[in-house]
């Protein structure tokens, strides 16, 4: 018997596999297919204070071993998330979930986080700092150490639950941002969000995505994610939730060796709706194959 249990910021997870925000909705589409209670936790659809339609379509483009999305945080807004979506999620999932919070101003992050903080179902808040700051010319909060720290510090003031700072990889030095978040009080780091990418349609000779650019995810970005997690693990003393291209149990182990305490699975859910379940099912055998008795022993093992 191997041990797949990990402790993430006080939450006992049966396994480290968590569907990533934006690829799993509020869980119930997947609950039609399998019992999602096997999941370590769920990071639900990024939630903002007001409802958002998101960006114009096309919002999706295919890439070699990956995809680009520019959904643009479509969500029904925090009030509806709390009154409608979370009860539906609770009906199909009996563990604590991770609330992914977006915002376009410091005040919006605070309001949204404080409302979700009151939900018993929510175990951790994951703050997506990759949103454009509308008060600072639209530059993403998460691309500067100062912007990232300002958001995390503000959110920490209004919450009692552990806070993960979800980092964008589209920066010069991700360790600087991670350190700034740690200093601002983040309890953990989740990384990486998507890489900014583009595809051009040869027939129209224009970008495939309406907004021209979007977030690149999928197996192609795994090496970038591993590198970034490895670098950040060397610098911070708080746990890391690793993500970016994870599609198999082997990828989970690789990400944990780089320094992740738990992992998130994103794009893989969209091409194989059973991806998380399959990864969880194959994890014990893959651990045995590589002589791993307890996942906790391999966290950061590559260093």
């Amino acid at each position: 018997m191997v041990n797949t249990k990990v402790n993430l910021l006080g939450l006992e997870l049966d396994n480290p596999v968590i569907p990533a925000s934006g690829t799993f909705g509020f869980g119930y589409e997947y609950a039609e297919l399998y019992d999602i209670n096997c999941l370590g936790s769920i990071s639900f659809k990024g939630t903002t204070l007001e409802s958002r339609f998101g960006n114009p379509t096309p919002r999706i483009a295919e890439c070699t071993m990956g995809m680009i999305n520019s959904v643009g945080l479509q969500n029904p807004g925090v009030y509806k998330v709390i009154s409608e979506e979370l009860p539906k999620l609770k009906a199909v999932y009996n563990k604590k979930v991770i609330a992914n919070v977006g915002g376009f101003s410091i005040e919006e992050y605070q309001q949204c986080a404080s409302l979700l903080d009151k939900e018993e179902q929510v175990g951790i808040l994951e703050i997506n700092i990759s949103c454009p700051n509308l008060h600072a010319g639209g530059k993403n909060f998460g691309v500067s150490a100062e912007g990232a720290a300002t958001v995390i510090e503000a959110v920490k003031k209004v919450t009692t639950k552990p806070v993960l700072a979800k980092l964008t990889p589209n920066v010069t030095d991700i360790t600087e941002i991670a350190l700034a978040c740690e200093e601002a009080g983040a309890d953990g780091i989740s990384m990486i969000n998507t890489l900014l990418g583009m595809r051009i349609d040869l027939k129209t000779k224009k970008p495939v995505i309406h907004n021209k650019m979007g977030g690149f995810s999928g197996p192609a970005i795994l090496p970038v994610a591993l590198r970034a997690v490895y670098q950040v693990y060397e610098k911070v003393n708080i746990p890391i939730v690793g993500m970016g291209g994870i599609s198999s149990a082997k990828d989970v182990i690789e990400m944990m060796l780089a320094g992740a305490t738990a992992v998130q699975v994103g794009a893989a859910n969209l091409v194989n709706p059973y991806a998380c379940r399959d990864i969880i099912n194959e994890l014990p055998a893959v651990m045995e194959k590589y002589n791993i008795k307890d996942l906790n022993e391999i966290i950061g093992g590559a260093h």
Partner: protein
Amino acid sequence: MTQGIYTVLSNKALTDSVYKMVLQGDTSALTAPGQFVNLTVEGCYLRRPISVFDWDENTVTIIYKVVGEGTEKMAKWQEGYECDVLVGLGNGFDMSKSGDAPVLIGGGVGIPPMFGLCKRLIAEGKKVKVILGFNKESEIFCKEDFESIGASVYVTTVDGSVGIKGFVTDALKNMTYTYFYTCGPMPMFKAIENTAVGGGQYSFEERMGCGFGACMGCSCKTKYGNKRICKDGPVLEREEIIW
């Protein structure tokens, strides 16, 4: 929705670029004409959503146009090839609103889902008219399929090589019907919206991520709120569409 491994029973060219494929496997998730399947194509990251032409207890037939890398690969699948398919996606057409004499309007590769609908409406005793729009004679497919099940078929071609010269609306404008159902390209939809009378349903196409409602990649705004083309559609009612 179900996921399974399906076996290709046949895969034949109907025109230069349009193919008909019969897949064998579990079809229990198909509940309405107008639904679609989502196929894994080796070497392509995302699945390929293709509308259902027809189905029975253990086969599902799709008709697709070769437009890119994924469909080029699909066209090469031989009898016996096994593929991973999500089946029974989307809402499909609501047949209860058809009235006694509906008209079905298909443009190009929007025609296939009209067949499964036509067959089931005729089985319910409805008198069905079908308008099939093409650019030219060499692109015509499926005309006989509709005729063989007893529909009144009207073909339009842009170049006038067969049937009525012009667009589907040139056939539609003088017709009487109780309701309409349509699938095809957006310019055709806009022409229909300006020509058709009474109620109807449009089946939309959009670039999709997952095809089952999780990624929000294919959302659209409607008068009744945001909808996902893959899950809440692809069929939308005329009255809810924002053009």
